[in-house]
Structures are given as C-alpha cells and as structure tokens.
C-alpha cells in the first residue's frame, strides 16, 4: 500500500489480514470479523467522526416571496388555460379527437396544470442532449426554440468543453482513454454486446461470476449478485424479500425505486422522518407492541429501508444508531448505497467503511454501478443464503436480461483499480482526490454565503434557490458561462425548496472548481442567492482547526 499514513490503523490492518487469508485459504468471514475486532473498531457504537450536517432554514421573507412567485405563475396558468379552452390560443398538448369528445376523458387536463404552465416555460434546462463522454467536461448540442419551449430544433452546432457539474461521475471512471479501456475493448471483441437471454436461462456468463466474486470481495461479504439495471434492482428485489404481513419502515426521502419496490411487495409501509432516529424508534416500538393492525399478531418481518447518501439532500444516513436500533428490536436493514459506494469511506467502500463498521451488520447491501464505476447496473450483496434465495426468487433474475459483458468488464477494471489489484495506487488517489474536492467545494460555498444542504463529506452538493423564477435564470446563465448544472424543483423537492444540485468528481481539477466557484460568486450576487445568515467570515483559520483535528 503506497501511503499507509493516509489510511487509519484499523483499515490498514484489515487489508493486510485479507491478503494473508487469501494465501492461506482460511474462510474470509471469520478472518474479517477477527481483523476488525482486534483493532478495537467496535461495531455499532457511535462513531468518533464528527457528523456535521447543515439544513439551514431560509429567512421568512424568502418563503413569502416564493409563494408570491408561485401565486403569480398560477394566476397566469389559469389565464392561459382559459384562453386555450375558449380557442383563443392554440393547444399544444395532447387532446382527444373531435369524434371522441363525448367519451370518458382520456387525458386529465387539470392534473398537468403544473407541467403545462410552469414546467414548459423553463423546459429548455432539462433533457439537454450531450454528444461526448460525460467526463469532467463535455459537449452539448445547441438547441433553440421558436415557440417558447413547446418544440426545439437543433442548430447543428455543439457547445464544446462545458464544465460538467451534473453527472454522477464521482471517481472519474467515465473516460475514453484507450489505455484504460483496453480490457473492455478486448471483451467487446470476444463477447459482442448482446446476451439474448435472462440469468436463469442462458444468460449467466463467466464474466458475471467473476464480477460477483469481485463485488463480494470488495465489500467484505459472503456473496453478491449483479443485475442489469440499478432501478430494477430495487424495485424487483424488495418484493422478493418481503410480502404481505411484513412491515417496511422507510425514510421520508427515499428514492422512487425503493418506494416502488415497497409498494409492489404488498407489505405495510410506515414512514419515519428523514434521518430521525427518535421517529424510527417510536415506529419500531409501536410495531413490536401493537403488531399487525387488526389481528394484533406479530409482524412476520420488519425491514428498515435507508439510503447511504440521499441524492436530493446530500445527507448521510446515521448508520451506527440505526444498526444499534435494529439489533435492539430485531429488525432487518436494507441499505441502498447508490450514491455512496465508491464515493465515501477511506478506500471507497461506502458508508459502512465511512463509519468504521462491519459489513455483517447490514443485512442487505445494495448499490449501483452507474455512479462511481462509469457503467450500468446494480448489485445486492450479503450472506450467501440471501443471495442464493434471490437468484431463484427475484423477478429481475428470472425475467430480466443480464448485464452485457463489456459493461461487466468496465466494472471489473474500475473495481480492481479501486482495490489496488492492478498494481497501481490510482484507485486510492481517486478516492482521496474526491474527498479533497468535496471538502474544498463545500467550504468555499459556505464561505460565500450560500445555503447548502447536507453532510460535509458527501459529494452531492445541493445549493438552494427557493424561488421558481430563479431556477430558469440560474441554469441558463450558468450555461452561458459554459458550466452545465442540474436544477430541480417541485415535485421532486418540497415546493419552497427548489435547488441546484452539483456532483463533485475526482476528475475535476482545482482550476475547474475555481472557475465554477467564481461563476457562482458572480451569479449569487446578481440573482441574490446568498441567503445564509451563518456564512463563515473571510478569515477561515478559526473554523479550519476544529475541522481538521478529527480528520486523521
């Protein structure tokens, strides 16, 4: 290992122990548990790391003005709808044919009120087609609209070298370097691109077996299974694990894939407040005491669904507290590490490593390869019995096409790079660069006076915009300065809290981040976005000391 001092003692010993075990052939499970216990990193205790999260509330006038903006938008929406209904204006959305006017309505007009009247006006900021690899910089196709965003046409030109602050490219593995993609090109020539079958029939390749073994080794668990699509991993596997008579306790801000999987399963779903341990404990107590709603029987299974990093808030789950709760009340834990695998942790192994915990504490580890590995697909990892059960009972395993071989090879090469198995320290360097970039970016944004949500270590940085008029202005002006950002509004976020979400990458250089920060500074002054009442002073020494003393 190149730089032992960068990794804390417990983890260094953990890696050495793993190498010894591989040579002597002792079972991994025993070795890993022993290794961690010996070095005193206890499981489930509250972590010694400082857990700094910000969720600052905006001043009251901001909320009032946001509602004023929505009010004016709604009034004009009604006006335009009136004009369309009375034929004073051309209708551009789907309408029924004249002959079918008296039938049951096919298109519910009012439901799309928000889409028609507010989203359409700023629609040019989403679905922008790109025409290069989504690395730290990318090329956009230029498009213009003649009728206020109802239709677009391409001018044929491309906007080159736009700084990419929106792609989930945390470790920078979305690259086109021929040297790096050598093995992927070889596998492409050997296997082609299609599988033409499902896992159960004839779609299991030796590449999948190799990848699953590698994923299990990377995470420190017994076995893993990979699927072709990340969203489908959640939505198709939760129904296989729980059914009627089970209880699902799911976080308020869980991703749609988890919500869909939970609803499809038919189990009872109860929601606890975001990252709020008190709320979760109250729900668990009620579940154990009162049991199922009418029959008062005990629940067959209680499962807690959480995510590693929440992509809209940038907050990290309070894993040690949740694991101690789950042990106390004998529930199961399903951890969705879509954004956190590869992005947090000293060696990129996710939130389990970030808190210094044992992967055996989490019953079902799930993650995706889309974000940090530059590929596509998802995995579920855990005990061998669990994964064997999923191989036969999961909808995705039985009916969905398996992952294609070049993509599997890309994940294998990225994971080997991350673990250091390709003989270089490039993987560790990428993780450390990401950590440095994240901390720098967040610190500068706080100093400038923006309201930024989330944990200081999460590479997802939501910057609050609040007012609907500023969403469009922000995204357009950033594109004029050659920076591509993703803005989100209602209904993906609460109505007053629209935001711009930045995804910091290990491939961003300091100069790129400085360009973005200077542009944000200018734009923040022009659009009046610096609402924070707790902005750091221009003399950061006081704050940096209290931060860094906990970092080694």
């Amino acid at each position, binding site marked *: 290992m190149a730089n032992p001092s960068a990794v804390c003692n417990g983890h260094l010993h953990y890696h050495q122990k793993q190498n010894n075990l591989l040579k002597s052939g002792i079972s991994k499970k025993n070795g890993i548990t022993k290794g961690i216990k010996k070095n005193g990193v206890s499981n489930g205790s509250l972590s010694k790391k400082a857990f700094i999260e910000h969720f600052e509330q905006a001043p009251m006038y901001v909320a009032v003005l946001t509602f*004023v903006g929505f009010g*004016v938008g709604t009034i004009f929406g009604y006006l335009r709808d009136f004009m369309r209904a009375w034929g004073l204006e051309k209708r551009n959305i789907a309408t029924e044919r004249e002959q079918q006017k008296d039938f049951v309505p096919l298109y519910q007009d009012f439901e799309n009120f928000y889409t028609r009247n507010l989203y359409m006006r700023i629609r040019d900021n989403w679905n922008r087609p790109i025409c290069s690899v989504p690395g730290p910089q990318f090329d956009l196709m230029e498009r213009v609209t003649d009728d*206020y965003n109802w239709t677009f046409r391409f001018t044929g030109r491309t906007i080159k070298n736009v700084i990419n602050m929106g792609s989930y490219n945390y470790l920078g593995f979305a690259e086109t370097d021929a040297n790096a993609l050598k093995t992927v090109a070889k596998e492409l020539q050997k296997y082609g691109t299609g599988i033409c079958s499902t896992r159960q029939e004839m779609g299991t390749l030796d590449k999948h077996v190799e990848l699953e073994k590698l994923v299990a080794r990377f995470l420190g668990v017994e076995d893993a299974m990979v699927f072709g699509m990340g969203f489908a991993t959640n939505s198709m596997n939760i129904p296989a694990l729980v059914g009627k008579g089970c209880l699902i306790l799911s976080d308020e801000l869980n991703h749609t894939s988890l919500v869909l999987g939970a609803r499809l399963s038919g189990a009872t779903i109860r929601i606890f407040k975001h990252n709020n341990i008190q709320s979760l404990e109250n729900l668990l107590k009620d579940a154990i005491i009162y049991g199922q709603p009418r029959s008062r029987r005990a629940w067959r299974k209680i499962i807690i669904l959480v995510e590693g990093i929440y992509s809209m808030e940038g907050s990290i789950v309070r894993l040690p507290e949740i694991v101690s709760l789950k042990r106390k009340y004998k529930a199961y834990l399903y951890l969705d590490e879509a954004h956190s695998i590869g992005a947090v942790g000293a060696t990129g192994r996710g939130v389990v490593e970030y808190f210094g915990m044992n992967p055996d504490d989490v019953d079902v580890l799930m993650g995706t390869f889309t974000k940090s590995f530059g590929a596509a697909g998802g995995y579920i990892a855990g005990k061998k019995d669990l994964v064997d059960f999923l191989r036969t009972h999961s909808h995705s395993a039985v009916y969905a096409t398996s992952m294609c071989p070049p993509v599997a090879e890309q994940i294998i090469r990225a994971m080997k790079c991350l673990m250091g198995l390709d003989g270089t320290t490039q993987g560790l360097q990428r993780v450390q660069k990401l950590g440095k970039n994240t901390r720098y970016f967040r610190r500068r944004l706080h100093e400038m006076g923006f309201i930024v949500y989330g944990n200081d270590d999460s590479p997802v940085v939501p910057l609050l915009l609040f007012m609907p008029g500023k969403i469009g*202005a922000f995204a357009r002006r950033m594109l004029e300065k050659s920076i591509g950002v993703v803005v989100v509004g209602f209904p993906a976020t609460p109505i007053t809290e629209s935001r711009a979400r930045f995804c910091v990458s290990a491939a961003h250089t300091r100069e790129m981040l400085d360009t973005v920060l200077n542009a944000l500074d200018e734009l923040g002054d022009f659009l009046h976005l610096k609402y924070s009442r707790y902005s750091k002073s221009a003399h950061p020494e006081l704050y940096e000391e209290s931060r860094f003393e906990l970092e080694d």
Partner: protein
Amino acid sequence: VDIKSMTSYLYWLYCQYELITCSYLMEPWEKVLFYTVNVATLVTLAYAAYLFVPARISGAFCFVLHLLGNQPENTVSIMK
C-alpha cells in the same frame, strides 16, 4: 451621485422584481399585461393616498392636540 452605478443598481432591482414575480418566465404580451395591472394598482393607491391621507393626518394631529390641550383645564378642575 454616480449616475452609472445608480442606473445599474436600478436595473438590478428591476431584475430582482422580475425573478421574484416570475415575470422573467412570461411571454412578452403576458409581461405587458402583468405590468399594466401592477402600474394601475400602484397609481390607484398613490392617488388614494394623495386624496385621503392629508385629511386623515391632520385629523389625527388635531385629536392629539385636543388631548394635550385639554390637560391643564382638567387638572385645574380636579384641584378645585
């Protein structure tokens, strides 16, 4: 008085108004309609203020004077 910085400040204020009330997103004819309504409301309010406020203020002023003016007489009457 710096005319350039004054005008750029006023332009910035106008931009803020546009962003807050979502008139930045409106098509030109909607903007015309919205500003007409706003200006008409402001003018009506200003005219109403011009007509009624001086009379009300002088009425309030007289009332206060009345209270203060009566004081010596009241104390004299109590003492008697």
